[in-house]
């Protein structure tokens, strides 16, 4: 039953999704692409692109989109796919709802204490590793092609990767604008 599986998967992602939207992407990718095979890496990358270009939290955007695509890929119709996206989004928010209410009600004064802060301090370097893993897993043939299959696409993809990293990381170009440039480059060079 895909809806039940979607619910538990996104509940887990909501419960363990530390480190903001990007930290959460690593969990979403592992669960939806590597474990459940609901989406291909290329589809997941497209979802991240659209989630980034759309206003609103990237976690909510990508959960909604993944829920839709997962059900759609399982050969269900549009209505069921909408239900899938609602399931994923609700399941992602539910752990937050439970945790934040519990914290407000009972634990708020413990949040600044040494034991709790130690746990958070331990998570921070690991989240960097999660993000690095997400990047490495996305560097595959689906997103870049390979030098043997399609050398031209591989060369252009690598160039676009370097240009975007340099443009957003060093020149501080707006990521959305950078995605638009890449889309134009793809249209002209990879049609």
């Amino acid at each position, binding site marked *: 039953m895909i809806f039940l599986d979607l619910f538990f998967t996104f509940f887990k992602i909501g419960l363990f999704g530390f480190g903001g939207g990007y930290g959460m992407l690593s969990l979403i990718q592992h669960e939806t692409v590597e474990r459940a095979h609901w989406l291909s890496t290329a589809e997941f990358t497209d979802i991240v692109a*659209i989630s980034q270009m759309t206003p609103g939290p990237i976690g909510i955007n990508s959960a909604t989109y993944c829920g839709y695509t997962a059900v759609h890929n399982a050969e269900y119709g549009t209505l069921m796919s909408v239900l899938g996206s609602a399931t994923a989004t609700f399941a992602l928010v539910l752990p937050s709802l439970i945790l934040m209410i519990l914290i407000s009600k009972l634990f708020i004064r413990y949040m600044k204490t040494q034991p709790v802060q130690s746990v958070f301090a331990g998570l921070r370097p690991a989240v960097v590793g999660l993000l690095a893993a997400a990047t490495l897993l996305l560097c595959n043939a689906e997103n870049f092609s390979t030098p043997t299959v399609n050398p031209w696409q591989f060369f252009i993809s690598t160039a676009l990767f370097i240009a975007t990293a340099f443009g957003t990381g060093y020149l501080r170009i707006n990521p959305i604008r950078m995605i638009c440039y890449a889309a134009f480059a793809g249209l002209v060079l990879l049609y």
Partner: protein
Amino acid sequence: MIPLIEEEVVNRHKWVAKEEMLDLIAIAQSCPGVFAINIAIFIGYKLRKVRGALATSFGTALPSFLIILAIAIFFSAFKDNPVIAAMFRGIRPAVVALIAVPTFRMAQRAKIGWTNCWIPLVSALLIWLLGVSPIYIILVAGLAGYLYGMYIKPTES
């Protein structure tokens, strides 16, 4: 997102005082889940208990949900269009770079140096090469952080 929330919640509606808001932001950021949703739940719960929390979280998620849904329905019809497909062949490597760059920014903020760089390296390799679930990495890192902070760090100084 933070300035937008602060403007509405602290300055306009005066639901939460400035200092308390800073505390809530810090907690919402270190907790799991979507930051905007977490802070919305805090404020909703503070004002109207569980019903308030339900209202604010629903309100924060709904616009994103509807916009993405519209795009998803639209995009699934045009995915195989050769023009759209070519554009996404260009977008995909760019998106990978957009995830690579924050990795380094986050490393700076987490104060990753020579002594602790093994933590992200080992975590990334376990996930990437051995297919270990990131959830296990989170659990182990949280536990290790607790043990380090409680038993090892006090003996170091």
